[in-house]
């Protein structure tokens, strides 16, 4: 058993996801405290180039054509052996649509403990601690990171991705992939998000709507405000699920991460899967009738008021201010 902290690098179609850097930053904090190393694990097909800016002491990479697409089956098999053999102190996964398919399976298979929704890891009195955010962000749960090897599903928010980037290319070690024939889970094809729509990741002003919008007709009110502000409308999961906005406008775990100058969160409670995608916004302004909504924890400004009361008034005042 080692004190090393392993980070399973998440990447999709040739790009390392931000959560990977967040995890590297978290791993570094732990490793510094307990004297272990930060080891990044990269599974993929022709994946070496992705390792260049990972702030890890070492990168273990495993290449196989079966890793070209994400298959939970392939990842489970590959990591099962690796974790068993290396027995690190902790293995960090992104609490994402990929990591979430793999880590719980490994936990059951290897009888290793698993912590999910983990926002922060730290060392206190020589003990590793986790802090997870649960119940839609309304509760934090704190505890000791179980041993000997803990699997951790991490959400963003506790660490900045920049801290996990490095200009120094890390040491690369190739390891063999296990047999990956007869995969029971395979990708047939990808369905690209609708093209031609605006890219909310690049917009400087976002008017974002959540459940508080109440019905489809009210989306128009948000559109008007966005128009006055020179921005676009985006939304959280409930709004997209109702088809009130196209999928391309989804901010959150399975949508996009955004970083506008202004993020106006209207009637959004701030569930973790949404919050994790707006961590890089320059300024968040939250409007919600519920003062306990977690969105107020990360917003710069807030107001407890019904967004539907505010929208027409604000649109008018913005229009006036522009003259």
């Amino acid at each position, binding site marked *: 058993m080692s004190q090393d902290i392993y980070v399973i690098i998440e990447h*999709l179609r040739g790009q390392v996801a931000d959560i990977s850097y967040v995890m590297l930053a978290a791993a570094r904090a732990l490793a510094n405290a307990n004297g272990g190393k930060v080891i990044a694990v990269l599974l993929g097909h022709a994946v070496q180039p992705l390792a260049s800016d990972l702030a890890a002491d070492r990168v273990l990479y495993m290449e196989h054509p079966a890793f070209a697409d994400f298959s939970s089956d392939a990842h489970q098999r590959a990591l099962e052996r690796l974790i068993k053999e290396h027995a690190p102190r902790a293995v960090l996964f992104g609490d994402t649509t990929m990591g979430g398919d793999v880590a*719980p399976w490994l936990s*059951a298979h290897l009888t290793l403990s698993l912590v*999910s929704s983990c926002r922060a890891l730290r060392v206190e009195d020589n003990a590793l601690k986790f802090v997870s955010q649960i119940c839609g962000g309304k509760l934090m749960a*704190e505890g000791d990171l179980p041993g000997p090897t803990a699997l951790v599903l991490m959400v963003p928010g506790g660490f900045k991705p920049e801290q996990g980037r490095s200009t120094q290319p890390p040491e690369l070690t190739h390891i063999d992939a296990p047999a990956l024939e007869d995969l029971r889970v395979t990708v*047939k094809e*990808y369905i690209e998000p609708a093209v031609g729509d605006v890219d909310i990741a690049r917009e400087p002003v976002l008017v974002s709507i959540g459940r508080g919008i109440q019905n489809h007709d009210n989306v128009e009110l948000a559109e008007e405000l966005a128009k006055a502000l020179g921005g676009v409308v985006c939304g959280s999961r409930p709004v997209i699920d109702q088809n009130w906005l196209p999928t391309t406008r989804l901010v959150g*775990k399975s949508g996009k991460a955004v970083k506008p100058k202004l993020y106006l969160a209207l009637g959004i409670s701030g569930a973790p899967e949404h919050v994790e995608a707006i961590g890089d916004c320059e300024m968040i302004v939250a409007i919600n009738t519920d003062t306990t909504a977690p969105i107020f924890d990360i917003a710069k400004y807030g107001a407890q008021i019904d967004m539907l009361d505010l929208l027409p008034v604000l649109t008018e005042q*913005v229009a006036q201010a522009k003259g």
Partner: protein
Amino acid sequence: MNIVVPIKLVPDLVEELVIDANGARLDPTVLRLKLNEFDDHAIEQAILLKEKGAGQVTVVAPDVDGADDALYTAAAKGADRLIKLTGNWQSGVNNHALARAFANLVKTLRPEVILTGVQAHNDLDGAVGPQLAEHLGMPYVGYVSGVAVCDGKVEVRKEFPGGLIAEMEVVLPAVLGIQAAEKPPRYVPISKVRQTMKTAAIEKFPAAELEAGGAPTAIRLFQPPAGARAIMIEGDADAVATRLVEIFKERGVL
């Protein structure tokens, strides 16, 4: 086709969450449980599959407050069989124990497809679905928003970050973690639920000793300080709008 939907109940976030005196768990006397939203989608997806072809839908829930309601509502929507896992759930239970208990029962049901909510807001030890898949030796795909069955396989749509969707093929039997059913869960009128309560039966299956191993222990629960960082703007809509316009100007948005 035989479909099993294991569901769980989670704290209703509409109600105030009260932490008990020990500080490590929610006060069960104040707690009100409700069906996990994603499990509701899993039930809907199962019934949609049933409606597309012949099949039987069995819904399985731990015997906690609100389980009867959730099961009868599922039956009113079209579920054929309702099973309650009886056991010592009072002290609260983690997903590791739940997954093992589900596995013991589901093995006896021999399903082709198991649909369950991809996550729940109170998951602290990972989702139930992939663990259940491991216990049953089945493949797992989560974050699924569309399921079609075709001879021995299912085609599912899995969501990736950024709006990318992959069409994947999964060999049956399999466990699928449902993010969203193809259609939003249907409405069942109360009268139908009440009628179902009279006609449908809930079977009981004793869960073996619950094994909680594999889950972390929360030592402390706490509420993040509300509004700690946001500067709150007071007043009515006009006042808030005026202040916001000032802020927008300061920040060069306007």
